[in-house]
């Protein structure tokens, strides 16, 4: 469902000059699979996911999402995805129902169909108690439910989630995890990013380790264990990054 092909993005930064935020990365994610992009802060995860969501345009390479090319038909791509990031807000002066109605309309839903779908979401994500309360009055957990409902309202086959549980307390993070696992069961293709190793291990079928814009390793958790010969997650992660740095040093 997602095929990333030599994707690269560089930014012009006043202080640092040209920044290679994503440096020619390739991988793919199938339907019914959870793929995790794992990497420290500044690794290029957000850049990668924004490129796939067609919010940014690639400097080089391309990708296909749900059969549509991100450069040539970005709108077709956006119709197939649900995009959520952990630090995203929801319009504070609107109620959950109004938020859902707004995003439903942006996704081409209207009339009776939209209303039915909103009711479904309100029920599935247990929003009904506060469905007509302005979102700035809601707790983080309630807001998160609304954010998730907003992401899957139009029933997209592909989910792109950027550190979806970062900054959330344990019960709320749990909400996100369960949602991802349920989505996987229903056959969705899920690409998500995290800097938390445990989360990656618990959720992912396969993991791509990114560091300084490059994909350093790719495989199942077991494959990564094998490769580093380490067992503790922390060690594996550090090892992978170290290998990356050593390789870079050798090249120099």
């Amino acid at each position, binding site marked *: 469902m997602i095929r990333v092909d030599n994707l690269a993005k560089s930014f012009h930064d006043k202080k640092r000059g040209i920044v290679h935020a994503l440096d020619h990365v390739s991988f793919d994610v199938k339907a019914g699979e959870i793929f995790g992009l794992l990497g420290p802060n500044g690794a290029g995860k957000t850049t990668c996911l924004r490129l796939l*969501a067609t*919010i940014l345009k690639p400097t080089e390479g391309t990708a296909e999402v749900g059969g549509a090319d991100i450069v040539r038909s970005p709108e077709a791509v*956006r119709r197939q995805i649900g995009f959520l990031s952990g630090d*995203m*807000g929801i319009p504070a*002066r609107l109620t959950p129902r109004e938020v859902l109605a707004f995003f439903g*309309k942006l996704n081409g839903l209207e009339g009776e169909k939209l209303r039915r779908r909103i009711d479904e979401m309100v029920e599935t994500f247990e929003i009904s108690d506060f469905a007509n309360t302005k979102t700035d009055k809601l707790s983080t957990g309630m807001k998160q439910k609304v954010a998730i409902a907003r992401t899957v309202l139009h029933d997209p086959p592909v989910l792109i989630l950027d550190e979806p549980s970062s900054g959330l307390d344990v019960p709320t993070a749990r909400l996100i995890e369960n949602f991802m696992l349920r989505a996987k069961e229903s056959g969705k293709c899920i690409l998500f990013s995290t800097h938390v190793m445990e989360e990656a291990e618990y959720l992912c079928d396969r993991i791509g380790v990114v560091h300084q814009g490059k994909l350093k390793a790719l495989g199942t958790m077991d494959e990564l264990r094998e490769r580093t010969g380490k067992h503790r997650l922390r060690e594996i992660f550090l090892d992978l990054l170290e290998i990356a740095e050593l390789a870079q040093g050798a090249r120099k």
Partner: protein
Amino acid sequence: MNLKTSAAVYQKEMLEIFRDRRTMISMVVVPLLAIPLLFSLINGFMTSREKEAQGEALTVGVLGEDKLPTVIEALKAAGFRPIAKADLRAAVEKKEVAAAVEETEDATGEKYVNVYIDRTRQASEIAGDKIETALEKLKTDTVRASLRGSGLPEKILTPFTTKNVNVASEKKMSGLVFGSALGYVVILLMFTGAMYPAIDMTAGEKERRTLEAVLASPAGRNEIVLGKIAATATAAFITALLTLGSMAYSFRFSPQAASTRETLHMAPPDMGSLVLVMVTVIPTAIVAASLMVAIALFAKSYKEGMSYLTPIVMLAAFPAVVGMLPGLELTPALALIPIFNVCQLIKEIFLGEFSRVAYAVAFGANLVYAAIGFFVASKLFKSESVLFRV
């Protein structure tokens, strides 16, 4: 262009506008409360100033009650209160009296009545005029008394009477003052009314991190910008409508309307003019909205957005102030200047003498500026360096 998407964005922005306290204050409260308040303040101020001036204007300095008895009698008859002063010139200068009179005589024995006034003071001028009238009457009465018994008809004293006729209609007077002040106030409030929504739905959304989800939806960038600009323009237009309505109320219906009209020497604006002004204001609302949305897009936070747009509001007031200069007429060439052209049009509509050509040119020009503004805003909305400025 998918107009349904724009409509969805518009609807959502309007909901947010009506629930935002800051916007509601600048869009609704200021026009509805501040304008009538401003008018009643001006009204009260002018009335008390006039009363004060009239009270003071009735004092006249003399060297002594016994000097010039006939003149003092005549002044008393005209309502003056004579006050004895040693130095008449100084008394007028120090505002102890509104004016002063004394009698002098030249070498040939011809008599003069000197009237001291201070032309920089309204009270003194009023007194001077009144004294002159009173003395004229005294002069005529004296002559008339001398003529009596001479057999000459009294009529020869007044072969004709002069009378000033103001050719400017009341409507024109009103238009001149009301129109130019109104144009300025409407533009100023319109821009402030649009400012908060413009910032809120651009920089504000960036800061609250609500924009990304919209960008990742199937909505096209042009559609989003169109919805946002339309909502901002609506806020600007609502502000203008309420301001105009509020002004019309102050002049026509408020309990003080009559006295406001009298003190400001104005006629109430007629409904036709008001409607025409409202139509004139539409393209300007769009220009203001596109300009502000485009600029506020650069900002990363609400606060930064404020610091960008506040000078814009000031700048917008500048052509409006130039438009208040008397004697300027809206030629088709001048009608190309944005904001200025609307202020002039508003003024001329109230004068009832606007040129159809200038109106059409101004309207067309503003529509073109609105289109340019939309184009620029939508370009910026596609620019990564603007949307994701770090």
